[in-house]
């Protein structure tokens, strides 16, 4: 009977057996990546354009940092200084208004065209005229669509002149020129691809300066070229054979979009990817223990904070602001929730930047907080809401804060939301408490000083919407100080002003800065020379190789 049954299903059984055998013995299209290609898993869904005059996102910063060159670059050995990139040398005039750069000769773009001062001037011109998100970095020096041709021009084929409107601190100007927006694009190639545009009141020019084309293409001179980009899927960089410096060791670098930490970890352990960039603390810890995987970490210029909207009468009381700073369990958060991806840091300048301080005056102290609240007349606490993005570690940190607030009687209600949703609410000043992060726009203390300490106009329709403005915090004295620091040409004095500013904001500001981001990555042991830089556009890949 049974034999009959088995015989009847003979063919089916045989087929299954063969399939199973095939799967186990078939050549696994290997679990290792090619030797001349680096495969990086990251969340690349924030890339909206590859045009350096338009790009301002984290991922794009890394791509343009590897594919374009600038006049000067951050000195990775001492991040408070700059070093030459395309420029051989530079001078500042005595009145502090004119910067003259001498370009190295015989440099080429990836296309083979020579790099001249004309290309530099063109890059500045289009960035200012296109007026996209990062344009303010150049426009803040008094450049606009009408005067950029005069203020940023090539006096001859190897000399570029940059004129600013005030005698700013040279360190400030030079730091800004290391930003992505100051990348040099190949004028000849870009001009072949300009599209006509109809001038309007807001955009007075008759062409798009190649923006439509450069959004998805490449015209640079860095160690890599950007070969291919499929949004939210993959981005491929290839070695630039015409690079003027030491050629990149790898032939190709591929970024795969993998936003899920658990999935990245599995792929890293199996060897289908070489570098995993989005690992959460728990996954980081477990891959670090594997023999064939290493980890690396570098502090980045991003601080995580939560801020108290001064529109809320309870939060506007100075004792309440101080009490709240004592109601955060910094040690516990540092030891568990952000382990490996952050370091406790309480001032608004990230460490490594000119003027940063290491002061950590606040610790969890419920008794002191209760005392302060009683002084403010709120000894029974009060209710308040916090808009929380539904991502880790933000959600866990918010829950932790809810618990420590509760110990002093403050009832914190967490309102979960999506990234852009909470941001929209924040920008409209409709929040009580907002928890988020701020990445510095360029590697100079002014970027964070401006946003945390200046508020030029507290009304609803102002042009400048800094974080202080978003939290309705108005301190004219601090605004003046931050603006004065810009013009302080003595670097040591400038540093001191920023140190003072941070101390004042620590005492009376509505910001509770909790930690500085540490970017961590796991990578296969056969990858050599992989390092993360202090900024997102200094995660250089040209010295990376595989054994």
């Amino acid at each position, binding site marked *: 009977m049974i034999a009959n049954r088995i015989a009847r299903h003979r063919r089916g059984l045989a087929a299954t057996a063969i399939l199973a055998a095939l799967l186990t013995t078939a050549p696994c299209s290997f679990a290792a990546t090619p030797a001349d290609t680096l495969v990086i898993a990251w969340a690349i869904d924030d890339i909206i354009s590859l045009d350096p005059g338009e790009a301002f996102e984290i991922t794009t910063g890394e791509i343009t940092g590897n594919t374009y060159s600038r006049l000067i670059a951050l000195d990775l050995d001492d991040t408070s200084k700059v070093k030459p990139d395309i420029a051989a040398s530079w001078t500042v005039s005595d009145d502090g208004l004119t910067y003259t750069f001498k370009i190295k000769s015989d440099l080429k773009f990836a296309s083979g065209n020579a790099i001249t001062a004309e290309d530099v001037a063109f890059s500045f011109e289009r960035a200012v005229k296109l007026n996209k*998100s990062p344009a303010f970095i150049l426009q803040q020096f008094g450049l606009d669509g009408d005067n950029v041709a005069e203020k940023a021009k090539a006096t001859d084929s190897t000399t570029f002149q940059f004129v600013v409107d005030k005698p700013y601190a040279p360190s400030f100007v030079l730091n800004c020129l290391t930003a992505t927006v100051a990348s040099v694009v190949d004028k000849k190639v870009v001009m072949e691809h300009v599209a006509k545009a109809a001038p309007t009141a807001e955009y007075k020019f008759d062409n798009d300066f190649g923006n439509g084309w450069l959004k998805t293409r490449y015209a640079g001179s860095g160690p890599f070229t950007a070969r291919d980009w499929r949004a939210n899927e993959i981005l491929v960089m290839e070695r630039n054979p015409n690079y003027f410096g030491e050629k990149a060791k790898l032939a190709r670098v591929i970024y795969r*979009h993998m936003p899920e930490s658990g*999935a990245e970890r*599995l792929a890293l352990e199996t060897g289908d990817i070489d570098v995993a960039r989005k690992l959460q603390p728990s996954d980081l810890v477990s891959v670090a223990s594997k023999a064939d995987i290493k980890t690396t970490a570098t502090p980045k210029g991003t601080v995580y904070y939560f801020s108290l909207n001064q529109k809320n009468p309870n939060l506007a009381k100075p004792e309440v602001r101080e009490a709240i700073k004592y109601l955060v369990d910094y040690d516990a958060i540092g030891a568990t929730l952000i382990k490996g991806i952050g370091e406790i840091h309480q001032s608004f300048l990230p460490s490594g930047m000119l003027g940063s301080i290491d002061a950590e005056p606040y610790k969890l102290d419920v008794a002191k907080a209760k005392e302060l609240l009683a002084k403010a007349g709120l000894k029974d606490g009060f209710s308040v809401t916090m808009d929380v993005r539904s991502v880790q570690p933000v959600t866990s940190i918010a829950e932790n804060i809810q618990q420590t607030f509760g110990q002093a009687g403050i009832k914190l209600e967490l309102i979960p939301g999506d990234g852009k949703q909470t941001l929209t609410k924040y920008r409209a000043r409709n929040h009580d408490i907002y928890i988020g992060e701020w990445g510095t726009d360029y590697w100079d203390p002014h970027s964070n000083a401006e946003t945390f300490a200046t508020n030029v106009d507290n009304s609803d329709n102002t042009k400048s919407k800094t974080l202080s403005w978003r939290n309705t915090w108005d301190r004219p004295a601090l605004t003046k100080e931050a603006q004065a620091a810009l013009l302080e040409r003595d670097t040591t004095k400038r540093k001191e002003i920023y140190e003072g500013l941070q101390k004042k904001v620590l005492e009376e500001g509505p910001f509770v800065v909790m930690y500085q981001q540490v970017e961590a990555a796991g990578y296969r042991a056969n990858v050599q020379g992989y390092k993360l830089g202090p900024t997102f556009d200094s995660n250089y890949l040209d010295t990376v190789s595989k054994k």
Partner: protein
Amino acid sequence: MTPMATARRSGIAAAGFSARLAGFLVAVTTTYLGLLAVTFFIGRVIPIDPVLAVLGDRAPASAIARVRIEMGLDLPLWQQFSIYVQKVLSGDFGTSVLTTHPVLEDIARVFPATIELATVGTAVGALIGVPLGVLAAVRRGSIVDQIVRVIGLVGYSMPIFWMALLALVVFYARLHWVAFPGRLDVVYEYTFTPISGLFLLDAIWQRQWEVLWDLVRHIILPASLLGYLSLAYISRMTRGFMLNELRQEYIVAARAKGLSDARIIWAHALRNAAVPLVTVIALSYANLLEGSVLTETIFSWPGIGSYITNSLQNADMNAVLGGTIAIGTVFIALNLLSDLLYRFLDPRTKAR
């Protein structure tokens, strides 16, 4: 019948047909318009600023104001909607803010990925689910029936992202039976040229067998997971339909006539249960075609589910509406197809 009567008969039949066609077209148009209107207004009402996706968080107020006007966000809602519908009727589905490509191009890129996944998943679900359902119905009440129902219950209740990670740990990390992530290994990135976007068919067409094997190894796990999800539903429905059929009198008659078990179950009962079953399978297929965001995220599968979700989170309404139209079209087409299959499988519906 006189020639006049015949002519009038066929004339009436023709009129009947064009009336039905007109009715169908009206229904389809209303469905599309309704779909677009609802999605459009939801999109404009959600508390996300679409300009954020274009310019990011750091743009100056002047740039924000300029982009608002460029995107037409300052016009009244109904005017924005009518502009959009007019553009769609002329074939312009707009440009996606996030990918900077025309929405049509994006959909042509991401939809085939989901179609592939959904098709293989439904095939797995149907090919395993139907026999399982039949087995459970035939052996009703026995241990086999219980096992099948538990398998179905697990598939239905477990969160798919958890099952996906578990499956990855077992079949990928430990056993190395399947490949991950994405649709294709990076090695083949420049040696394989997609034609239709349905990579499996493209590889067969171009006779690239190594690529085909790699594609199969990539698709088998996510498709099996989705298949498991479908299987849970399909096997339960099959069981129900089969039980219904097996209760009928013609089964007793067939047995009395001496037909074998196998013939009764497969050639007769299942044939009759196939009619409602086809609708179930078509609906299940349509469900998968909407794009299973969680599966696509974990497997880095560049499909339409993550495309629409990402666009929605950034209030990129051109992309969301384009995707909605694509999926709506597929739903309507599948409904039509299952209606036609109905008429083919059940001769009773043909008699009009």
